[in-house]
């Protein structure tokens, strides 16, 4: 008990030292493992099964929209964000550290059964990349873009495409809050016309495009498309690294539950947001990585027992994503389970006497 108490207090006082990992004695493998190692870059095999702390300000800055709802509730209840270091995440981090950025971007697909922690692995990787200073393009859940949309507008840019102003503006707001400094550094390379009067000149910072999209909600989806195109073109120059993190990527190739005004079903290509995202996920650019997650819980028209990439992506998706690195995520191993259980006991989350 005393050891665990020490580990937590030290973690609160000094941020990045790894002193407390020596405090945990090796003779008690059933004890709770906490690490005060809050930098994902320094996580190694030794830290597997331990929970590391993310300071709350960083959580608000890095993940304005990425975390699953239950994890956000947990953060609110315990007043701290603790993420477990697991083997699939460590694997991904080693690949990212060793990847050559002159080659085209490598695609990683995280898959696994329901509730095994794919979204949390993705968030771990996103945290690492934002610590390293990469530009993070994090789409929280692609399924939100293909279902339950209240407003569909005819796109002014291309005739047969449909816009989604609500979802696009929400995403632009979150993107702005997470990647402030990049928006000032990256400059546009072409002149873009928003309607008849407004236009963005060449050489203006990207922040202007984002503000334009937020101010004129009707052209928000086009603003998103412009942002994605600019970032893709400029990433291979090497001034910054790009990480495309998409959660629920199987939404881009399935069916949508949206309908046009004449009640005909909408296919994903007709949505501007989905079209632009598909261009991002193709690996014809270099200087970064694409990490995606499959998700069955939000997917439409797919059976609940499907979890392999082949079943969930469908034929088109699988062909488009074809050379990818699959990363399976299993359930908690006994050691991880013990540490999670110990954490909950300590935080007074398990209250029933028989549960202890």
């Amino acid at each position, binding site marked *: 008990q005393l050891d665990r108490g020490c580990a937590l207090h030290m973690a609160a006082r000094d941020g990045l030292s790894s002193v407390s990992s020596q405090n945990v004695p090796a003779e008690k493998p059933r004890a709770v493992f906490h690490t005060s190692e809050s930098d994902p870059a320094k996580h190694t095999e030794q830290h597997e099964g331990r929970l590391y702390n993310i300071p709350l300000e960083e959580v608000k800055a890095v993940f304005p929209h990425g975390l699953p709802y239950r994890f956000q509730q947990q953060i609110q*209840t*315990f*007043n701290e964000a603790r993420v477990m270091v697991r083997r699939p995440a460590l694997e991904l981090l080693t690949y990212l550290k060793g990847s050559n950025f002159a080659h085209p971007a490598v695609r990683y697909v995280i898959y696994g059964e329901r509730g095994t922690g794919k979204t949390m692995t993705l968030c771990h990787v996103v945290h690492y990349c934002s610590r390293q200073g990469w530009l993070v393009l994090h789409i929280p859940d692609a399924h939100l873009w293909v279902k339950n949309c209240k407003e569909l507008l005819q796109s002014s840019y291309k005739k047969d495409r449909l816009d989604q102003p609500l979802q696009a503006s929400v995403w632009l707001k979150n993107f702005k809050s997470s990647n402030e400094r990049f928006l000032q550094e990256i400059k546009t390379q072409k002149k873009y016309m928003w309607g008849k009067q407004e236009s963005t000149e060449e050489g203006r910072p990207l922040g202007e495009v984002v503000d334009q999209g937020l101010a004129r909600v009707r052209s928000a989806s086009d603003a998103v498309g412009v942002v994605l195109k600019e970032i893709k073109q400029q990433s291979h120059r090497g001034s910054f690294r790009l990480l495309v993190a998409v959660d629920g990527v199987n939404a881009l190739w399935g069916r949508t539950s949206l309908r046009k005004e004449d009640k005909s079903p909408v296919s994903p290509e007709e949505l501007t947001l989905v079209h632009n995202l598909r261009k991002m996920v193709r690996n014809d650019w270099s200087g970064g990585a694409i990490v995606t997650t499959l998700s069955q819980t939000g997917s439409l028209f797919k059976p609940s027992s499907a979890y392999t990439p082949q079943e969930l992506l469908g034929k088109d998706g699988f062909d488009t994503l074809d050379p990818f690195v699959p990363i399976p995520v299993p359930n908690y191993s006994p050691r991880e389970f013990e540490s999670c259980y110990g954490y909950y006991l300590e935080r007074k989350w398990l*209250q029933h006497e*028989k*549960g202890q």
Partner: protein
Amino acid sequence: RLMPVRWSRYNPSYLEPEVKTESYQKPLEELTEEEKEQMELKAVRPIKAAPPTLSSSVFSDPMISKFINMMMKSGNKVLARSLMSQTLEAIKRKQVEKYHKAPENEKETIECNPYVIFHQALKNCQPIIGLSNITRGGKTYQVPVPLTDNRKRFLAMKWLITECRENKHRRTMMPEKLSQELLLAFNNEGPVIKKKHILHKMAEANRAYAHFRWW
């Protein structure tokens, strides 16, 4: 699937089923004389069928199951049970949040266990004395009358549920409303406790008619 009949009448020789697993795990030497006789009787006599609500899990609680039965509408026990578990989780969340934000000296006073809170809140809501209508000479009088334990529990649970269903904003979810009510009742505040006090005052005011009671 066999449905148990309500008020089914068994032969009096049938015994009640024993659900707790601990009683079966005791080795033979530890049993007292009475328990050994009980076991021999059980080997001979037939036993009644266990109702589906009676479970041998450590987490089951007869009060909680009664409350779930009262909350159930049109036989949808699955929904009622899930609502109850969400309520207990909501209570636990609120209390744990308060616990972590409180300064050190107040931490022991905050109760985090939702079962304890539920039982205490129910106890606080139970009235001690009730009123019943007795007709004498054409007029009906409200006569103060003692209540049985079952009746007290029933009234407490009924008041809680009606309070949640009627007096709250339409769009709030039931677990939220219930958790709020239970926490208020735990601290002896809230509309249900007020109702109990009003009932007590009425009983006190009608003391004069207490001799109308004949039981």
